[in-house]
């Protein structure tokens, strides 16, 4: 059914169609509308049987999900930003125990300075946590990925994080195709756990493991992600057959066949990039876009296949590794090992900084003209950066950085002419 609906509501309804049995809710912007929606659906009896637990923290949210999943229930939660960090210990625990929890991550910056707006710092901080990380480019994909995620997670007994850009997607009202319950039921079988806490067949889960087997347990988690590399496109294909929509999968390329320059990105910025690339192509530039849908497992072969024919690759990242540069870039370069392709990292959109077509077009023209630095912070306000550097050089007690910069920028009202 076609609906005009907010991204968060679409995800809540998609999760509802997956018949979750335990939902753990803790508020944090910008995921809050999702758990609000689910709370209403559970309380009104539209999701039943289901326990909706208002927990006291994100750490508890993931811990309750762990208990529920280990007891054989389909468990779901959602978080963002600081919430993901606060639950980090339990995030690693869920994957270590092989519990197929599905979690929405409404991507948001990590403080300090505190910032509620979108970037990918939260996802990237848990890059190595052992969860599958899928990125949605638009709200229809966010919805579809949740249904695919439960299937993937439960098949592999491994948790899946569906990442969608906070506000840009979660709060955007778009036209959505909402599947029916029958369609989803036919696609997603009931959860059959590999391990379950059951008095009829007592098992110990989470025992101490020493050097004699720890590496093997970790290797098996990696092996499962390798299997996921095969299953993700297969599940996307099956989903496409049943629902008629080509969403999910490992990567998605636009105009890459003849491209000399390819921009690599994750999430909603792919939409902006596609429009930018159309514009640049009209100017005769041979340029394409590669969207990475599956960040973990990272599809090295699929990425290499698309990128290896290009002259240069620009990785557009909404996060960065302080003291190094790109996070996604590092993985992309590994995929391109030995290939004669120039690599650039463009960090953009941190903390919700708008990524405009104009800035993208200008940056990409610089790349084609070989004028781009290997690491570029797009639309960085050098004026306030340099003022702060001068301040620090001039005085030991230069004060708190963020507050100094905000004073230099001036109030929002002062800029309204």
């Amino acid at each position: 059914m076609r609906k005009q609906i907010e991204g968060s509501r679409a995800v809540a309804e998609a999760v509802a169609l997956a018949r979750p049995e335990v939902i753990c809710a803790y508020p944090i912007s910008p995921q809050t509308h999702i758990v609000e929606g689910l709370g209403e659906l559970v309380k009104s009896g539209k999701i039943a049987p289901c326990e909706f637990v208002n927990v006291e923290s994100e750490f508890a949210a993931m811990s309750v999900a762990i208990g529920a999943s280990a007891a054989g229930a389909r468990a779901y939660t959602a978080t963002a930003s600081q919430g993901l960090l606060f639950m980090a210990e339990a995030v690693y625990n869920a994957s270590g125990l092989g519990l197929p929890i599905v979690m929405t991550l409404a991507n948001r910056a990590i403080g300090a300075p505190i910032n509620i707006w979108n970037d990918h710092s939260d996802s990237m901080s848990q890059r190595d946590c052992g969860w599958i990380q899928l990125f949605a480019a638009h709200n229809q994909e966010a919805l579809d990925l949740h249904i695919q995620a439960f299937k993937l997670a439960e098949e592999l007994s491994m948790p899946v994080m569906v990442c969608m850009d906070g506000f840009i997607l979660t709060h955007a009202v778009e036209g959505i195709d909402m599947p029916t319950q029958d369609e989803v039921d036919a696609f997603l079988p009931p959860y059959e756990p590999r391990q379950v806490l059951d008095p009829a067949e007592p098992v110990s889960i989470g025992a101490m493991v020493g050097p004699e087997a720890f590496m093997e347990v970790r290797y098996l988690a990696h092996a499962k992600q390798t299997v996921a590399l095969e299953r993700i496109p297969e599940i996307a294909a099956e989903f496409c057959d049943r629902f008629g929509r080509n969403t999910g999968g490992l990567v998605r390329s636009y105009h890459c066949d003849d491209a000399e320059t390819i921009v690599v990105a994750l999430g909603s910025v792919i939409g902006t990039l596609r429009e930018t690339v159309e514009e640049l192509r009209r100017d005769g530039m041979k340029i394409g876009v590669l969207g990475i849908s599956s960040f973990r497992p990272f599809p090295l072969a699929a990425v290499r296949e698309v990128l290896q024919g290009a002259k240069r690759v620009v990785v557009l990242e909404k996060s960065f590794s302080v003291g190094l540069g790109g996070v996604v870039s590092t993985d992309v370069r590994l995929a391109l090992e030995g290939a004669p392709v120039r690599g650039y990292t463009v960090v953009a959109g941190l903390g919700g900084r708008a990524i405009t077509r104009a800035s993208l077009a200008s940056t990409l023209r610089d790349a084609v003209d070989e004028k781009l630095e290997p690491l570029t912070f797009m639309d960085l306000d050098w004026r306030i950066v340099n003022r702060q550097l001068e301040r620090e050089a001039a005085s030991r007690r230069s004060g708190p950085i963020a507050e100094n910069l905000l004073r230099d920028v001036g109030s929002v009202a002062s800029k309204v002419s």
Partner: protein
Amino acid sequence: MNASIKFYQTGTFTVGNRLLSPEQRSVQASLERSNAINSGHRACQGCGEALGARYAVDAAMRAVNGQLIAANATGCLEVFSTPYPETSWQLPWIHSLFGNAAAVGTGIAAALKVKGRQDVRVIAQGGDGGTTDIGFGCLSGMFERNDDVLYLCYDNEAYMNTGVQRSSATPHAARTNTTMPVGPEPGAPFGQGKKLPLIAMAHEIPYVATATVADLHDLENKVERAMSMHGARYLHVLVPCPLGWGADSADTIKLARLARETGIFPVLEAERGEVTAVSKIRRRIPVEEYLRLQKRFAHLFGKPGHPEMVAAIQAEADRNICRFKLLDKTEAV
């Protein structure tokens, strides 16, 4: 519920099985016993926690006809019982993290409810560190939501698993490796620490009780009582630790008994925030008798010693006796 025991000898606190009616007798081993924590684990000799957990979990198993699932915090109990494949647990058991046992218990209970398996019940358990400190947030959340979990805290009054460091359950003046007996105020500082049973009561949950391994019947009865109820329940069990307390392994039971008889550890039951029963002190004992058996308090005695600290601990015990009415009416405080 505590049938009074007639003591035939004066000056002793022990009572042999042969002097008790059959239903009051302790049963160490029997075919009916579930042995939920089986023999062969790696607890120290004289471990109060192993004893307390064995009786508590077995009592819970009996109370619910073996339909029990346990969530366990990281700590001594988890470590000594599970180096695989030598798991001691004869019931479905999960260890997730140090600070989340109560929340994992909540999740299990939620799953069982959805599955329509309300015959299967849930316990969560941990030491004092996992309960009063790092797991406190999850525990308080589980309490306030009144989730259907019995939480068992085995309190040995410090982080014993990591080598005896202070927790918020460590008694004043006690030596731990982070409260060394040096300086003008040796040991754990006065004026700090928390009494978790009282905090649990403040949540007005259906049932809160304390017990010690000195009275295993009382412990079993309280577990049974707790399992006859639904909602959030809390049982705080004092379990002496020979290693951490610097005590003789043979003195575990004696120390637990002295903790009660001095008034240092009040043994009580409460429902919905109100105290409903207390175990009366049979013969009041000065705290010094309890403290002197433990090397963690050795700096309080000898030369120069800290008689003012012993007096402060005595005052705390006296306050407990007064506050919880631990003496029979016939004996004045």
